[in-house]
């Protein structure tokens, strides 16, 4: 058997295995996906929101949190990271009007959300501590849907489901699909105690658990991933509440999207590098989350190499055949060029692709925003599946390069 064939089988096997984990987890737990646990008591909660130049969004963000139906929300701590616009003035206005709102400002710009968050933590005295982004809008019941998981004393954190706010531009529409699939997948991973990130738009932690981590890592570009791994490494469980919905703005241009994804990937690499010694160690972090994370990247990169190699050879061959055929005045295409005997590799690929598409459809069907079953056009799903996802591996390569060059800019 050729080396490439063996490599292809390894690739397909790992991809099949991951997909099987999702599919079987879904079938075994589908009745519990939307389950909400009633809190056994009201737990006091403070939400810390870092803010930098968000004067267009911060007022709506504060009002959305003030409208929350959760009775235990004691403080809304908004930390302005020395904005150059009117953000801090707006925050102070709200602080004057609502005693629950605390307006803070860092002594100097920290340059990243983690800095402002760590600054705000010092003012939290409640049993639970939550974090949000200044441009995110939680549903009225989002927090109350999350709190029940803390009945389990082993739970250290809970995260919410992020929907894209007002996806009108095409790139945001595709990201809306992506966010729904990410959220659905994350929920499935919860059943395995394998959630690897508590998102920035809205996550809540047990203060005792959070304090054990020492706060957000200022050297990490994805402080939310790092914090989650830290919690899991300390033995805390991390949960996700699908009914807890928060809407967030996503990049509208390729440039900002690219920058965001590079930051996410570099942050992921930084986190793996930090916890590398725990690979295959005890607990889900070493036994599943890290290998899963690394293998997912391996799949992406191997897939890209395969595709590029095959496509390049195919196109080069077609080009040369066309060139020589024209010169020799023979037909460019003949019946011999079409094979009706697909190889086993092709069949495996088709099965994998079909299962992947079915998973995408199921994930979207569980993320209804409107009355429609899927909520997205077939074309959008097609673009997402066959073009957008192909952007992941090249981004990863660029991210690796930037990581090696010491990239650490928010």
């Amino acid at each position, binding site marked *: *058997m*050729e080396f490439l*064939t063996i490599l292809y*089988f390894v690739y*397909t*096997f790992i991809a*099949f*295995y991951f997909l*099987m*984990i999702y*599919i*079987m*987890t879904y079938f*075994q*737990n589908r009745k*519990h996906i939307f*389950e909400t*646990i009633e809190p056994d008591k009201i737990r006091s909660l403070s939400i810390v929101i870092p803010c930098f130049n968000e004067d267009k969004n911060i007022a709506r963000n504060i009002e959305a949190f003030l409208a929350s139906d959760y009775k235990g929300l004691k403080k809304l701590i908004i930390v302005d990271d020395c904005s150059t616009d009117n953000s801090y003035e707006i925050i102070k206005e709200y602080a004057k009007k609502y005693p629950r709102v605390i307006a803070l400002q860092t002594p100097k710009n920290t340059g990243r959300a983690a800095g402002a968050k760590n600054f705000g933590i010092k003012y939290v005295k409640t049993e639970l501590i939550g974090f949000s982004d200044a441009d995110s809008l939680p549903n009225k019941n989002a927090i109350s849907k999350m709190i029940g998981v803390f*009945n*389990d004393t082993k739970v250290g954190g809970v995260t919410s489901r992020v929907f894209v706010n007002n996806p009108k531009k095409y790139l945001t529409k595709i990201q809306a699909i992506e966010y729904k699939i990410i959220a659905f997948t994350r929920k499935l991973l919860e*059943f*395995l*105690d394998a959630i690897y990130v508590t998102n920035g738009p809205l996550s809540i932690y047990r203060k005792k658990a959070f304090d054990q981590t020492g706060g957000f890592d200022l050297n990490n570009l994805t402080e939310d991933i790092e914090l989650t791994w830290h919690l899991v490494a300390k033995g805390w469980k991390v949960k996700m509440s699908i009914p807890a919905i928060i809407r967030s703005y996503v990049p509208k241009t390729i440039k900002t999207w690219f920058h965001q994804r590079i930051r996410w990937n570099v942050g992921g690499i930084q986190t793996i590098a930090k916890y590398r010694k725990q690979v295959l160690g005890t607990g*889900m972090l070493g036994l*599943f989350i890290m290998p899963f994370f690394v293998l997912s990247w391996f799949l992406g990169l191997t897939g890209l190499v395969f595709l590029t190699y095959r496509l390049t*050879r195919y196109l*080069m*061959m077609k080009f*040369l*055949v066309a*060139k*020589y*055929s024209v*010169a*020799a*005045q*023979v*037909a460019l295409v*003949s019946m*011999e060029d079409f*094979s*009706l*005997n*697909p*190889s*086993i*590799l*092709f*069949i*495996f690929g088709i*099965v994998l692709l079909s299962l992947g598409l079915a998973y995408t459809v199921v994930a979207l069907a569980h993320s209804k925003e409107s009355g429609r079953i899927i909520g997205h056009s077939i074309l959008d799903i097609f673009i997402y599946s066959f073009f957008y996802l192909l952007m992941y591996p090249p981004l990863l390569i660029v991210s690796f390069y930037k990581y090696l060059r010491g990239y650490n800019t928010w």
Partner: protein
Amino acid sequence: MLKSKKHVLWEALIVTIVIFLAGLFLGMLIETSNSVEISNLFTQSEISLTDAMATSRLVEDFDFDCEDIKQNNIKFANRIYEEAQTLEEYEASGKLTDSMKLLHKKYDLLRTLLWTSNQKSLDRCENYNLIVYLYEYNSEDTNKKAIQNVWSKILLDVKDQNDNILLLPIAGDQDLTSLDLLMNEHQVTQLPAVVINNNEVLYEVDSINQIQTLLN
């Protein structure tokens, strides 16, 4: 409170292994079935070749009609050409076993035998043309593969335009002693090459016309 269901990791692994093994088994089954089909065709071709070789010997001793010899040889060559196309198709889809490669080699040997058996018939009867197309089977060079692809098309067009062509495509790098001897005999030094009527050896094929001018 929901309990963690990590056992799904093992279950998924077992299901994946089962699906994979089933897929591989199915693949092997398909490839074996293809191989058996080609083997059956090959057995029939072997009989036809033996027949052709017997005819060739008779040509030496008796005065047979050249038209009959031509028809028989071309008919046989056409059949193994079609079988070779089927073989190539199966070979392209075969990823698990090497059985098709061995069958390809057997067909190359068969065509080599047909080439040798036609030497005398061709000398006596000048009413047909023998085109032996020697190509590189194990080449990874994309440019060479493209050239070979186009040569195949040119030669097939030549064959389609003339009803007196015996076209024998043979892989020249199959390590067959008889073929290597024949190639030495015709001073074939590189692949691909086209040998026309055992006289002309071409290393450049630019057009159909170039071949047509060298035919009887």
